[in-house]
């Protein structure tokens, strides 16, 4: 009890910060809008956001209500053009400072959450004063009520989640298309420099054989043998390219056996544990396979590891892969491009990579790909809680009564002047009350029908939103 009063006291004490902040904010906003002192805007937003974040944290700790921050992801740092200059709108800059500042400013001012925060701050003193009696008499309920109020203006909305999701998807799409384009270029180069050149050589050899075959059959035979060897080499080369595109064993057997094949080919002693209920989709399989392949070859090449362990398992619809080796450790994603490449590949599936590699080893890499197992999680219909289910059933069971007999049928009786009153409530009332009652009944019935349909729909939409929104937008 005492602790609750302590919390209430903290909330009220925060007013000492909030009231001056309201005053300062108003001044800063007026100055930045009316007098064009735009540089005052970002610091003001930053102050308010810091306070809002503090409030979210307190509410989470005190009432358990997790209030998700609604802000859009930060804009990425400006990228220089080919000539080294930075473009913002139609102006070119030598340094990224101005474009970065402009991006930031635009990001802050277009985010509706900025204005919701300001509204929250403005109303905050009023709400606290209004809630003061509740705080004093029923502190637990008061805190709960206050948390709900905070969530109303500080929590994520469907729009903010979707906007965040769209930005996140745009970035991962760019990453995915970039890495795919790089792959394509690599394959093109391999085919151009290797296979194609060798086939040209074979063709030339065969041309020479054609000329020689009558005059010098022995030399022609020797050249034919050479052409045959060259075609063998071409095939070997082609096999290497194919392995780089999509390893045949992966296509034939799936991730588990493909990783086992990797383990056999590796110079280290690799143990493989696979626990997957079914085959994954081909792109996911490929990303996971190349990630494991890269990690194992890193361990053998740079880590000087003797043995390694790969564990692939599914948790609900998520795929989790752990690769552990007994090498030197000290791996750093910033140094080599290997780990960064894996991260890029996984990003297309919202995958994350966690690296733990203390100097001296062992190195453990854990990768998680959320919701990639087919037929699980994503397609599962969301279940209504029992209370809502009972309400929906009750609505369906009773909604017909006010709509049809008490509503429409009574209205028809009334229009055609049927004398029968049966059990229609409206017809038993004085004439002045009859039409209002009939219309009221129809309205009530329709409302009940609409509610019976809306409750499950909105419920699953909430659930869908929650599932569709990344909880770890790591790439921002």
């Amino acid at each position: 009890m005492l602790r609750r009063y302590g919390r209430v006291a903290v909330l009220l004490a925060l007013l000492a910060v909030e009231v001056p902040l309201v005053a300062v904010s108003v001044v800063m906003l007026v100055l930045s809008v009316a007098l064009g002192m735009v540089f005052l805007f970002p610091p003001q937003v930053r102050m308010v956001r810091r306070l809002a974040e503090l409030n979210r944290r307190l509410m989470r700790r005190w009432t358990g209500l997790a209030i998700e921050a609604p802000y859009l992801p930060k804009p990425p740092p400006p990228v220089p053009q080919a000539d080294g200059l930075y473009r913002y709108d139609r102006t070119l800059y030598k340094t990224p400072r101005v474009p970065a500042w402009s991006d930031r400013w635009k990001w802050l001012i277009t985010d509706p959450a900025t204005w919701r925060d300001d509204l929250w701050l403005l109303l905050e003193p009023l709400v606290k004063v209004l809630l003061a009696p509740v705080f004093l008499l029923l502190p637990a309920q008061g805190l709960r009520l206050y948390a709900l109020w905070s969530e109303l203006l500080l929590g994520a909305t469907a729009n903010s989640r979707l906007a965040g999701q769209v930005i996140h998807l745009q970035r991962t799409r760019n990453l995915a298309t970039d890495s795919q384009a790089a792959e394509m270029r690599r394959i093109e180069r391999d085919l151009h420099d290797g296979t194609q050149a060798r086939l040209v050589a074979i063709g030339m050899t065969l041309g020479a054989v054609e000329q020689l075959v009558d005059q010098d059959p022995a030399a022609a035979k020797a050249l034919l043998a050479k052409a045959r060897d060259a075609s063998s080499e071409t095939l070997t080369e082609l096999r290497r390219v194919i392995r780089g595109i999509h390893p045949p064993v992966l296509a034939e057997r799936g991730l588990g056996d493909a990783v086992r094949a990797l383990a056999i080919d590796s110079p280290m002693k690799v143990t493989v544990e696979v626990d997957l209920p079914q085959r994954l989709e081909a792109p996911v399989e490929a990303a996971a396979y190349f990630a494991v392949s890269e990690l194992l070859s890193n361990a053998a090449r740079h880590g000087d590891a003797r043995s390694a362990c790969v564990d692939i398992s599914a948790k609900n619809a998520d795929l989790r892969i752990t690769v552990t080796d007994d090498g030197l450790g000290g791996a750093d994603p910033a140094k080599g491009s290997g780990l960064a490449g894996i991260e890029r590949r996984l990003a297309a599936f919202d995958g994350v990579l966690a690296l733990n590699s203390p100097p001296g080893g062992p190195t453990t890499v854990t990768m998680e790909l959320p919701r990639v197992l087919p037929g699980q999680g994503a397609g599962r219909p969301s279940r209504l809680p029992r209370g809502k289910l009972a309400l929906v059933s009750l609505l369906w069971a009773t909604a017909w009564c006010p709509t049809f007999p008490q509503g429409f049928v009574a209205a028809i009786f009334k229009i055609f002047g049927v004398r029968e009153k049966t059990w229609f409530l409206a017809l038993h009332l004085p004439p002045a009350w009859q039409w209002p009652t009939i219309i009221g009944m129809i309205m009530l019935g329709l409302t009940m029908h609409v509610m019976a349909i809306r409750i499950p729909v909105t419920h699953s939409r909430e659930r869908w939103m929650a599932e569709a929104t990344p909880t770890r937008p790591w790439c921002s």
Partner: protein
Amino acid sequence: MNVLIAEDLYLLRDGLVHLLQAHGFTVVGAVDSGPELLKGLLELRPDVSIVDVRLPPTFTDEGLQAALAARTSVPGLPVLVLSQHVEQLYARELLADGSGGIGYLLKDRVFNAEQFIDAVRRVAAGGTAMDPEVIAKLLASNARHEPLAALTPREREVLEAMAEGRSNAAISQRLYLSESAVAKHTANIFAKLGLAPSDDDNRRVLAVLAYLNSRA
């Protein structure tokens, strides 16, 4: 000698039929899908069959699965598996039952008709024919292990040829050694690896392969 061919590419199937017929084999069947292959293997019981790993309907490893299934019900049924790529994983699965009459070669080995026919005959006789690439990979993944590191380069060459499934006579021809020298090298290899020596060529090869597989 009766031979069954399973290959879905018409040109290659036709080429194999002609090649084998020219070398005195009787082609009792040429099928192009996994289920047909399994039926053929079990009903015709060919002296040897030549099987492509990837076959319709799923174009995964139907041929390999059919061969493994047939060898479970008819142990030692001679099968030579051909593929566009070789995997140690598949080689292990084929060798797992410990009986001979198994081959696993890259498709390009067909280019050299003489060696290919030799491999077919070896498999039909209950021997083994492993692709040099499989053996090279197998030795590479064993590279760090003590007993193998102790082999001389010449002994390594002999071991490679032996693991491919060649007899002493064939090894002596390939490495330009006398047969007695090959026999001496073989005895040394077996001593260094700690394996019991055996005069039977086929059993010897299987022992070496099992040894290499167990260590990798």
